[in-house]
């Protein structure tokens, strides 16, 4: 049965059979649907990469822009029309590598955008180089003796910057992933959902089984509002914790802080501008 967010014809994807992106695509569509979010109100801002192609397969509004730049575009969209639900989606190279500076500052701005990052610890579209999250000693056609860089830790970075919502999911568990995505979408403020998923073509180390064996779900009684406890969790690497790791509801969102919305809550496109009102700035004194 055709649901919201489905196209009349199922588009042919550019993904490999068995790719974790399929599960993420399905679950995201289901989560949006179950939350009754009108596809007219959704915008997906995506970068470039296999993960960012997700935007091509969802029947809704989208801005599929440049590699690394989904967050600035999403910021411009959300702040110009706060009534929209805005998702910034891409892979680990897109968001943490090319877009690393924007990642840091989108968190600091607390822009009300859902930042979904497909994290497979490898570059897929460019055929298998290391990504910022690749584990040490991972060998690639470029890192021929293995990766020697310290892996980027998006969870720890986000928490340390006071991110308003930080979670990690695994594409191999669609039920849990859906729960986490729904929480993120319902959250007011910036929300990071880093989703572990296997790349069947270019990462033979961190495969489905590896993720299964190297992750665990946070216990029911875990307090995700305690920053220092959350940081401890973020640094666990023997087994990576899954679930909502940190929530910080102290900060206003970016739009709430802006002078432009102080006296007028309407989105920018609904406001009439009269050039004659500007004339007084040129007073003769």
């Amino acid at each position, binding site marked *: 049965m055709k649901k919201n967010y489905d196209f009349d014809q199922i*588009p042919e994807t550019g993904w490999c059979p068995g790719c974790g992106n399929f599960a993420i695509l399905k679950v995201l569509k289901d989560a949006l649907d179950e939350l009754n979010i009108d*596809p*007219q*109100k959704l*915008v997906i*801002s995506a970068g*470039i990469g296999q993960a960012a192609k997700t935007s*091509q397969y969802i*029947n*809704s*509004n*989208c*801005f*599929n*822009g*440049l590699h*690394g*730049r989904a*967050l*600035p*575009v*999403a*910021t*411009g*969209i*959300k*702040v*110009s*029309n706060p*009534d*929209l639900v805005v998702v910034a989606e891409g892979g680990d190279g897109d968001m943490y590598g090319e877009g690393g*500076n*924007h990642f*840091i*500052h989108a968190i600091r*701005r607390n822009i009300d955008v859902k930042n979904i990052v497909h994290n497979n610890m490898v570059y897929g579209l460019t055929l298998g180089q290391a990504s910022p999250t690749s584990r040490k000693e991972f060998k690639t056609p470029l890192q021929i003796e293995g990766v020697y860089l310290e892996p980027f830790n998006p969870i720890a970075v986000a928490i340390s910057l006071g991110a308003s919502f930080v979670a990690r999911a695994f594409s191999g568990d669609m039920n849990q992933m859906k729960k986490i995505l729904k929480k993120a979408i319902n959250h007011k403020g910036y929300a990071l959902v880093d989703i572990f998923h296997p790349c069947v073509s270019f990462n033979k180390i961190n495969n489905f089984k590896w993720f299964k064996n190297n992750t665990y779900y946070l216990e029911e009684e875990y307090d995700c509002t305690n920053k220092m406890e959350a940081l401890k969790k973020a640094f666990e690497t023997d087994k990576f914790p899954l679930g909502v790791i940190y929530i910080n509801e102290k900060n206003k969102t970016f739009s709430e802080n*802006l*002078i*432009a919305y*102080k*006296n*007028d809550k309407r*989105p*920018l*496109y609904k*406001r009439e*501008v*009269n*050039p*004659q*009102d*500007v*004339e007084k*700035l*040129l*007073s*003769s*004194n």
Partner: protein
Amino acid sequence: MKKDISIILSGEAGQGIKTIELLIIRALKNSGFNVFSTNELMSRVRGGNNTTEIRVSGKRVQAYVDRIDILIVLSKNAISRIENRLTKGTIIIGQDSFIEKKYKNGQYNIKDVAISSLAKEVGGMIYSNIIIYGLIAGIFDINLNLIKEYITKHFSTKGKEITDNNINAVIKGYEKGKGLKLGIQVEKDEKTKKQVLLSGSESIGVGALAGGCNFITAYPMSPSTGVIHFLAKHSEEYGVVVEQAEDEISAINMIQGAWYAGARAMTTTSGGGFSLMVEGISNAAITEVPVVIHLAQRPGPSTGLPTRTEQGDLNLALYAGHGEFPRIIFAPGNFTDGIYLTQKAFNLADKYQVPVIILTDQFYIDSYQSIKSIDFSNFKVENYITKTHKNYKRYKITEDGISPRGIPMLGDGFVRFDSHEHDERGFITEDFDIRKKMVDKRLKKLELYSKESIDAEIIGSKNYKTLMVGWGSTYGVIKEVIQELNDNDTAFAYFKQVYPLPNNTKKILSKAKKLIIIENNATSQFGQLIKRYTGIEFTKHILKYTGMPFSLEEIIEKLNGLK
């Protein structure tokens, strides 16, 4: 009675020269003088040597002059950098200890004014700049009440004591200035009282607001930052989203998101920042999202001379971005055009869905001048957003190349923008036929725009034999050269639209027997552009790339050399 007087304030960074400039030009303008001021600063917050030139004139002037009629010295070592601009008649005002011995040989008319001791009498050295403000006002015999009124306004938030001290300071300076009995008289022009005083930055800011700008983001970079400061100051009244971006890459992408969602957005930057935006400009081209970029040039390459001026980034603006796509580039030469072209930039970006770049430079941006009031009732915020229907196609192939642009939540369609080559619905395609159609569609927009291109303006004799060609901020100086020459054979072609070349380009250039191109750069970038599109080659160039603007005297001298 003098035609005009040039005053130079020379001192260190951090001495409050800017405050003197802003107060005195306003007082002079409102007393019936035409004023123009420009500064040249070192890239530092304290020390060094900075100068501000203020021209007080019977007619409207907008050019830098070498000649110094009155030099006001605010610190030690404030003369040597500019000593070649002193003439026999130069009056040097300052305290004795600031004026080196070598200038005291009777060549110059030195007036010893002990500014520090006057300042100490008022309450400290901090009052020195206000004393100088009073001094200049006294020299020009400006109404003392007016002077005091500006002080009261300027210090209104600082409390009574500080205001009173400053009023004492201004009176002391004023009496001193009158007491010098310099006998300076400049023709008055009562019209100036009704005119509007503003800076180059403000002209771009006012133009943006008049164009309906409601979103600006930028990374601070001299000399472009004044524009975002201006919009920040007025953001509440006009409902403008103002955000300091983490880098210029973010800024250019953020404004694309903003336009996508229905805002009218701009960014402001200088060469280095613009270089970072290049990929984003290419993205705006293929997604066909409007963008307005203000590029305030300064000398490069790289960090270059951060606080100085040059017209060296025309080629950067012309060729920025991979792939082939249209763009529009304006280069206002005066503040009226700065307002007019900036407001127009928003309408054109919206209408043609192309990047519109406004090219200025440090000289333009940091200068102050009064302009005739502008009739804002001629301005219209043109909105080209379309309401979408169920089967809306973002990149519909149309005859004129413009595909109606929808925004999310306005209508029943989905709005899909794509940086890949795409089909009419905005989906990735690698169909060669569609690719070709999309390239043609995008390029067509420039042909369409050309129909409403802004012509180059001829200033001076319509029956010219010699034509000087300039663009952007050289407008003021070349125009004054024309006035000085006052001959029937010479005119000036002022280009305020530099790309696409205006439709009258070939016609006006072909008419001249002798062509001279004047540019504030080393390689005559605009001359090259004209050659490329018209085949007309310039053999006579007047180029300057020291980091300073052209002076009036310099162009006249070089013109004589070309005869």
